[in-house]
């Protein structure tokens, strides 16, 4: 009896601990197969952007072909949606899978899928004018030059990018308004400096700190774009103003910025976006093309004094010199100043709790100042997928405020990056776009079904589908497509993102240089981008080096140069020197 009781208790504990972890799972029931229709399996990486946009495609595509037959004895199409892994994992699986036939995934190394023959040629789809769907123009005609160069291989197109991923800073607009965090017209130091030859406004006698912030009367400052009445009015225009903004938050009891403790690389990724904004397209693109002239290489001594280096022709053999780009130093300095003071963020969660993940950070940010015990947070380091991912948190807020606050009046927007110096204010923002989202057709798709799969891909990228994608996910696609006036008025996040994107110079972080194509992960991985060797210590996350090891921006920057030596570069990339290195 005693033995039986022991076994029973042991089994009970085992079952509770094993299945207890699954209680939160809420799997949707799989759709039943309709044997009167032809099934097309579509795989979606269900993270960030969700699956709603594919469900919308399913509804419209099934309706479009409800009376058409693709196999004997069947009429119509049934789109079966399946989850797929993120690109890196899916690359290792797809060769053994016959379904999905079409897939959308992120973090994918496009060239590896193509080079191994895992995906089908869709040249005809990309260059076809899909008038049948009421569309006017080809997919190719809407792609940026950057995207065309990257996605068009020697054998044609094999995939198209399905989303523009961009990492940056998200603002809680409600908190900014309630706490008067915007800068005021005439009060923002950068505005005074721009019109008064960089003079310190505090010394002018006609300026006081009372003028700094917008309190509801008058107007907001011009922001980083230097223009009034645009999407970035009142936002910090320079790094210096961002620090003032953080001080203002601290004075008002607001946390200035927040990120998920599990991902210290968040700052690294936002940092790369900021480097791109500092450098501009021509200089930043060198980090992917390794073909051009580097114009802002610097050296920094131990005291932080900068020496400018002469212009340097960059090719595959000397790409390591790009570690000396000024933007990298300026951004490291910016983050060092912010992280050095622990008044601006919550070290307990963001530095010291690895279970604090993206969902927790989003919840903290959205519910801050609303739910009991939650502090107001002004900004979150995140990406363009934020609005789509924050909906559960908004639902919690709606319920706890009896509907007073809801998704229609909770306003969030991607922030324009402040500029490093006043003289850069007014320059267009450079948006660094991740080149790892792909939509493609599995090479194992049965021949008779390829035409249907191609029809689906073409349908997924019509102007209407692009707009629907933005409407549903609040994210953009790296295509030229125009939203009709007022189309996004009900979605503040999407509207401001659309405005920011249209005003910005967009840059795809990819190139057709074989050195990039065969080593893409080395160039888009933030840990490799920020690798640094300070003395005998190796770092790859500036946030950790600065907060836990106390490394300065100067040491970190010089460590990046030390890490990328000529011999190290030769070992990794010598095979690719044939491409653009002049032969003696």
């Amino acid at each position, binding site marked *: 009896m005693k033995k039986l009781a022991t076994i029973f208790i042991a089994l009970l504990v*085992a079952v509770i601990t094993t299945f207890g972890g699954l209680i939160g799972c809420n799997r949707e029931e799989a759709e039943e197969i309709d044997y009167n229709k032809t099934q097309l399996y579509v795989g979606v990486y269900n993270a960030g952007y969700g699956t709603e946009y594919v469900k919308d495609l399913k509804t419209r595509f099934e309706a479009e072909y409800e009376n058409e037959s693709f196999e004997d004895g069947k009429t119509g199409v049934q789109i079966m949606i399946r989850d797929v892994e993120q690109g890196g994992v899916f690359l290792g699986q797809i060769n053994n899978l016959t379904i999905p036939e079409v897939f959308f995934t992120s973090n994918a190394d496009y060239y590896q899928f193509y080079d191994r023959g895992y995906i089908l040629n869709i040249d005809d789809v990309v260059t076809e004018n899909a008038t049948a769907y009421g569309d006017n123009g080809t997919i190719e005609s809407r792609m940026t030059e950057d995207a065309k160069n990257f996605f068009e291989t020697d054998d044609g197109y094999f995939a198209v990018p399905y989303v523009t991923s961009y990492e940056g800073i998200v603002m809680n607009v409600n908190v900014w308004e309630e706490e008067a965090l915007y800068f005021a017209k005439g009060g923002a130091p950068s505005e005074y400096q721009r019109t008064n030859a960089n003079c310190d406004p505090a010394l002018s006698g006609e300026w006081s700190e009372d003028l700094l912030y917008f309190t509801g009367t008058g107007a907001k400052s011009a922001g980083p774009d230097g223009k009034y009445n645009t999407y970035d009015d009142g936002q910090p225009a320079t790094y210096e103003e961002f620090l003032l903004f953080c001080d203002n938050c601290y004075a008002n009891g607001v946390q200035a910025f927040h990120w998920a403790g599990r991902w210290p*690389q968040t700052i690294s990724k936002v940092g790369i976006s900021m480097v791109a904004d500092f450098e501009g397209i021509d200089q930043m693109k060198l980090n992917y093309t390794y073909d051009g002239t580097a114009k802002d290489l610097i050296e920094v001594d131990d005291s932080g004094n900068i020496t400018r280096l002469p212009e340097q022709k960059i090719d595959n053999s000397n790409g390591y010199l790009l570690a000396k780009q000024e933007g990298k130093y300026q951004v490291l300095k910016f983050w060092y100043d912010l992280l050095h003071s622990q008044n601006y963020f919550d070290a307990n969660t963001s530095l010291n709790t690895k279970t604090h993940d993206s969902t927790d950070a989003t919840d903290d940010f959205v519910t801050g100042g609303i739910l009991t015990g939650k502090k107001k947070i002004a900004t979150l380091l995140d990406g363009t997928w934020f609005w789509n991912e924050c909906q559960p948190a908004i639902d919690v807020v709606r319920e706890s405020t009896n509907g007073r606050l809801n998704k229609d009046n909770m306003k969030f927007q991607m922030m324009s990056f402040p500029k490093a110096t006043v003289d850069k204010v007014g320059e267009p923002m450079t948006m660094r776009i991740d080149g790892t989202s792909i939509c493609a057709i599995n090479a194992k798709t049965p021949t008779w079904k390829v035409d249907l799969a191609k029809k689906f891909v073409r349908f997924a990228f019509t102007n209407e589908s692009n707009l629907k994608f933005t409407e549903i996910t609040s994210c953009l696609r790296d295509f030229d497509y125009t939203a009709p006036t007022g189309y996004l008025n009900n979605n503040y996040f999407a509207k401001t993102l659309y405005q920011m994107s249209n005003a910005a110079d967009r840059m795809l972080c990819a190139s057709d240089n074989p050195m990039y194509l065969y080593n893409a992960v080395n160039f888009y991985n933030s840990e490799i981008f920020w690798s640094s060797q300070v003395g005998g210590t190796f770092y790859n996350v500036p946030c950790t080096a600065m907060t836990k090891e106390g490394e300065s921006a100067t040491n970190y920057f010089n460590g990046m140069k030390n890490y990328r030596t000529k011999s190290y570069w030769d070992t990794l990339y010598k095979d690719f020197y044939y491409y653009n290195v002049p032969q003696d």
Partner: protein
Amino acid sequence: MINAKKHVTMNQKLRGDRIFYWAFLAYPIIHFLIFYLYVNFDSFVLAFQRYDIESKTYNFSDPWYNFNRFFNEFNKNSVLIDGIIMNFVNYAFRLVVIIPFTLYMSFILYKKIPGTDFFRIMLYLPMMISSTVWVLLYEYAAENMIPEVIRSITGQSIGGLLSNDSTAMGMLLYFQMWYSVGGGTLMYISAMSGIPEEQVEAMKMDGAGSIREFVHLTLPSIWPMFMLFLWTGVAQIITSDMSLYTFYGDDEASAPITTFGYWLSIRKIRAAQNVFDLPYVAAMGMIESAIILPLMFSVKKILSKIGPKTEG
């Protein structure tokens, strides 16, 4: 006529036995030929090859490239030296704490002290439940529960114990111990159960206490198994990732400590995504084997020489 018939029947039976015998052996032999010989031979050859971009094939244009690349990266990265030290710390902990504790627990359970069944269940529990579940539970306890308890008692925030550099090592070592003691105990108890009762009784009659019984009878009796544990443990000196992959995934940057085994695993996973880097992965595997094999055989030789002998 009868004899001829009998002869035919015998031949048929023999043939049938042979067919059965070869059918029985065919699967493991084919498995061995493909997954052991072919795969390892292929990896061995691949380690000396490079991927040619133009022809999209592997060739022997620079046979030592992958090895040079590894040592270049090794020299560059101070994390690796620290990682190897971590691996040795981990092995030392296993040797000094986990193995003696496992032996101690096994002996106690073998001697059937009061509460044996309870201890047995508690020790086996980690083996009965998925490691992912344990990792999740352990992670939340270390990162949220314990810090919260400490905060409520002392009023001080200490942060997560796995996120904190000064506590992460201890927490990971403790997890190793907690997770591996059950499996080891199970094996040792099985071996101890095979000790003849007469020998135990004889020792008791000679007035031997528990310690003497353990040192002079139990340990020598289970020495081959003990040696096997030590020996296989040596193989993990370099390759063990101390459960870092389970806790931190391939997110190297979040791990406050890195072992060489963990670093190597991540490099392999990343490189395996790229046709250009596959030979590099193969070279890594060869280097790993080149370090481990001599070490394992040396330890085996030493252990077989120093093994204790049973009394009587």
